[in-house]
């Protein structure tokens, strides 16, 4: 249904533009005000400054939180991706009783609000005396990172010609060897994409980290604490840095996922 009506066409383009403005406005404001002189972001522009960036690097609280996040997120993403790869492979290749139930159980954590999971995690961890540590955040983040890892890697595995693995077996490889030598290399783009996605999710996660982190806050938890005290433009600066980092990660995911999606017979579908 391509509208031949130019008015309808024009209206559609204007509408697209308006929604894009809505979607991009906070990012634009973040970047813009990270360079503004005044402490209170206002429209009459007062002047350029890099003060907020130097203040940011001098802020011990934020630096500590960033360090915590840079410990938690990569480890959680790595564990989740490894578990996700094994699960995706097993779900893709094998039949077993309870398969459907298992795949639902593995996907469901991403559908449950982190608020509920956070309370539950704290309940279990405090019972086991594992709460309030960096590893508490890692242990719990892995649960919510597994679903997307499985989904992405399974997508990649589905595209693998089935006879490739069978060929390896016929040539004398054990299933273990073919998993390591054939399936794993094939899945690499999916695995890297899944890792980056998991890293981003973990890096951004607030509620669960708030409940289980105790006195070792991650970056979002620390930002939350700072926000409740005062308006602080160095948050704009850290936002700009995070945005740039996620653009780079997003480009990475895009470059890795394009081959996955364009291999499919159907229309390209994003993650």
């Amino acid at each position, binding site marked *: 249904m391509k509208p031949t009506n130019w008015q309808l066409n024009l209206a559609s383009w204007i509408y697209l533009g308006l929604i894009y403005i809505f979607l991009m406005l906070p990012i634009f404001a*973040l970047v813009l005000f990270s360079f503004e002189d005044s402490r209170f972001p206002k*429209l009459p522009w007062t002047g350029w400054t890099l003060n907020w960036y130097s203040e940011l690097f001098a802020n011990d609280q934020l630096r500590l939180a960033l360090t915590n996040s840079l410990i938690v997120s990569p480890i959680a993403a790595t564990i989740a991706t490894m578990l996700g790869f*094994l699960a995706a492979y097993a779900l893709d290749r*094998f039949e077993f009783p309870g398969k459907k139930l298992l795949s639902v*159980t593995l996907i469901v954590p991403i559908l449950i609000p*982190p608020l509920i999971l956070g309370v539950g*995690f704290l309940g279990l961890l405090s019972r086991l005396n594992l709460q309030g540590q960096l590893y508490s955040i890692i242990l719990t983040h892995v649960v919510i990172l597994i679903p997307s890892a499985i989904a992405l890697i399974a997508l990649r595995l589905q595209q693998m010609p089935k006879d490739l693995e069978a060929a390896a077996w016929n040539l004398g490889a054990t299933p273990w060897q073919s998993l390591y030598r054939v399936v794993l290399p094939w899945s690499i783009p999916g695995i890297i994409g899944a890792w980056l996605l998991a890293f981003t999710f973990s890096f951004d996660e607030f509620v669960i980290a708030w409940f289980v982190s105790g006195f070792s806050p991650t970056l979002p938890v620390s930002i939350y604490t700072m926000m409740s005290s005062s308006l602080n433009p160095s948050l704009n600066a850290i936002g700009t840095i*995070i945005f740039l980092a996620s653009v780079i990660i997003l480009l990475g995911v895009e470059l890795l996922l394009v081959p996955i999606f364009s291999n499919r017979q159907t229309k390209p579908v*994003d993650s």
Partner: protein
Amino acid sequence: MTKELALTRILPRWNPTSLLKIACLTPVVLYDGIFFLLPLIFLIWIGFWTTENYRAVPGFSLENYLDIFSQLFNKSRYAYAIAQSIWVASTTTVLALILCYPFAMSLTFVVPERYQRTALLFAIAPFWTSYILRLYAWQTIINPNGLLNSLLLQLGWIQSPIPILYTQWGTRIGLLHYLAPIMILILYVMLSSSDRSLLVAARNLGATYWQTFWRVLLPLSKPGLIYSATFGLIISLGDVLSGVILGGGTGQSILGKVPLFSTVILNEYAASTNLPRTSALATILILLMVAILVISSRFAESKE
């Protein structure tokens, strides 16, 4: 098909594969068993514990629930908070659908096909930046001296700043900005895979654009709409950040100044660290969401 059959016929003879299957599945089953299912069971169980001297004491008592139910309409006024949550979540979801559906439609039918991917990527981009920092940015935009108000004042469109920050509209803006990229993705995937020959047929048979939309495209989109609505409701009910950072914890409504239920859960834990009671409140939230899922699946089945 034949290849897969051949493969499964080979499989049973290879003993190592069953070992491989166990080796692949055991880690993830154990992990999710211990760190996902167990916490959920714990959450419901701890709701029945009691607290003595600020320490959770295992047991089985209905104390938490009785206390919560006795405060439904006075003191903590949980019923109001739940009503407020449902109100904000449902209005936000409807707004999000009204905003995102035409966007996905324009994307599918107006933007040339080879640019659609890039256009979609830009629409999803905000999702990848930190949610809490996006909310901070919205704070600088919608506060009384912020970007939006100073722009409108300078243009002379308004005489005094309009209060948006720390109102229910603040909460909605934050939630909309969170939901929009995901809803656009869901609706775009659904619209672009719907059968275009039906639309062409409707046009050829003399239907106007409006009729084609109303009688053909919208019914075709029903599954995607229900899917994204359910998703929007669940996210909005469970979200804490938007209500606290942009809504200011409370929101003025016909019920008076009442916080969202999710905010209540977070704040009660922050103030008291009373885990049994927080768990009981979270269990009530779970029940609320299960009810929504049941209703929406009924919706999806009916009217077929």
